[in-house]
């Protein structure tokens, strides 16, 4: 049992953080706290992907000098193009001197981080506008104000109709 938990310690941490983020995003009344929860949630996804890309004993996926093929000179005429490198891909990976982690999840998360930054800044901009329009950033107060104005409008319209019919 203890082994079962400890073997997957990384995943437990990720799941725990993810649930914390999700809970904050749903339960907080303060809009900024909601965004914080959302950010935690998105960051956990990055952790999840990066932990997927980890290879046991692998170093950071930056090609070390020993592993660059000797015939590979970028400027040189007649070096293999992307097609031949792709075709030879399987064999080239087999005789690397170092073990590398999988770089693809890192690259994916680079994109996800950019998306996260865009979401965060858009959310903050919306909060600034909400603050200007309502004078508060608490979701329950915003809801209360909305209900009050809707009721006031209803009353006014009813008065209008009465006047028109009178």
């Amino acid at each position, binding site marked *: 049992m203890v082994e079962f938990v400890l073997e997957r310690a990384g995943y437990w941490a990720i799941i725990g953080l993810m649930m914390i983020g999700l809970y904050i995003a749903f339960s907080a009344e303060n809009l900024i706290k*909601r965004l914080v929860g959302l950010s935690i949630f998105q960051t956990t*996804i990055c952790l999840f992907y990066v932990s997927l890309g980890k290879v046991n004993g692998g170093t950071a996926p930056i090609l070390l000098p020993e592993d660059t093929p000797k015939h590979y000179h970028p400027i040189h005429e007649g070096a293999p193009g992307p097609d031949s490198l792709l075709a030879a891909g399987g064999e080239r990976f087999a005789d690397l001197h170092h073990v590398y982690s999988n770089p693809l999840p890192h690259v994916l998360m680079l*994109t996800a981080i950019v998306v996260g930054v*865009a*979401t965060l800044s858009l*959310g903050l901009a*919306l909060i600034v506008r*909400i603050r200007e*329009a309502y004078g508060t950033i608490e979701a329950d107060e915003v809801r209360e104000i909305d209900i009050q104005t809707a009721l006031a409008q209803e009353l006014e319209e009813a008065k209008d109709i009465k006047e028109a019919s009178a």
Partner: protein
Amino acid sequence: MILESVLSSAPAWALAHAPVLLVVVPMFIAPILAMLPNGRAAWLISIVATAAAFYFAIVTLGLVQSSPTGVLSYEAGRWPPPIGIEFRTDALNAMILLLVTGIGFLAAVFSWPTLSSELGNHNKLGMFYAAFLLCLSGLLGVASTGDAFNLFVFLEISSLATYVMVAMGAKRDRRALPAAFNYLIMGTLGASFFIIGIGFLYAATGTLNMADISDRLPALTDSRAVQVGFAFIIVGLGLKAAMWPLHQWLPNAYSYSPSFVTVFLSATATKVALYALIRFLFTVFQPEYTFEMASFSWVLAPLGIAAMVICSFQAVFQTDVRRTLAYSSVAQVGYMLLGVSLATAPGVAAGLLHLFNHALMKGALFMAVAGIVMTHQGTTIRDFAGLGRTAPWTMTAFAIAGLSLIGVPLTAGFMSKLQLGAALFAEGWWWAVLLVVFSSFLAVFYIGRILQAAFFQPPVNPRKTHKEAPLLILVPLWILALANIYFGIAADFPLGLARDGAVAALGLEAFR
């Protein structure tokens, strides 16, 4: 025959690059519009951009139909598919692309009068049109990419642009701001769930190309990672597609955003998310898997039925026309889900046909409401009283689209409900047919209330003058309204598209 003449007259470069051009052209025009200081010029350019995208979508459809395999693959950067990003178009995507670009074009034409009256400040409208084109390009990207992670990126491009456009409704009603914020939280959670699911699939299969994932999954159906990934993907895309009960963001976002945004979103955004759902349900995962069959009969069908009945009820009790229509949109997503959950070719075809027709009717309904908002400044049912007399053209088109939404014979809505009923009967789900009929009765009530107010009540407010919506609104509105009637009588074209799409989704050959 129109398709063939377009294909034969298309230049070689358009034939070679159409699947990627229709995504990239709006994306290229958008930053140009963001720098334009003149709103009217931005409007004209955005019409050109959407028209170009529409043209490329027609070419793509023609290419897909004339290709022997029925699949069009475009390798971005000439990196071959399992490694590189592939734009993969088959009959299913082609239909969605045609629908989204067509609605996008009509919406762009109609946008100027309503936007300039609701948002004012003509010089900043360039930014708004940039957001519109980015949203369009994102939606088209979702519909045409063959790479699971790329789908997430396009989904977020379109969603971020959507949040901005919804928030722009604050000029008219400040409630647009909290609506946009809630939509942002929910939409981002949905996209995050989707990307977690993709992570599980990547962990299990080691690839991100959707066709490649689908090839490798049969050996892994017992893997718990795959099943968890499936669940995450369904929830995430369900949130984006406003699947009941994940639709809470939709009513507010639709009722407080600028009228133009509601027109565009109601006809495209949820449709594209639903497309992605269908793509994952049927192409990436195969319907033969037991866990997936279980999800069809125990999750999707009940949710579809619940949406149909409960949201129709909610629509009946709304006082705001746009809210009524928004709840009705969730109910219509229920019809589509019900058709899809049959997992048979006629069922999926019926769902797709309803998707197509619903875009036509909701587009027309919201366009008519946009015209009313512009001329009469009100969206409650009380404001609609007597409008049949003061704005006959607008309200007649509204009535046609409303009847189509109910499913009156000779309209497009009738055709799709007929197909859905036939598909349900073929499976022996007669009780579901009864529920479809019941939900249509509810539609009679909520559309009937609006029509009754518009045509049989005197104008409540005598100050409101006799005023019709401007021609730029009326022409696209009537094109959509007439399409509702035309496709109700001669349904061959959308029916053919839907059947081909269902065949492509399910990977069948026999059913045509």
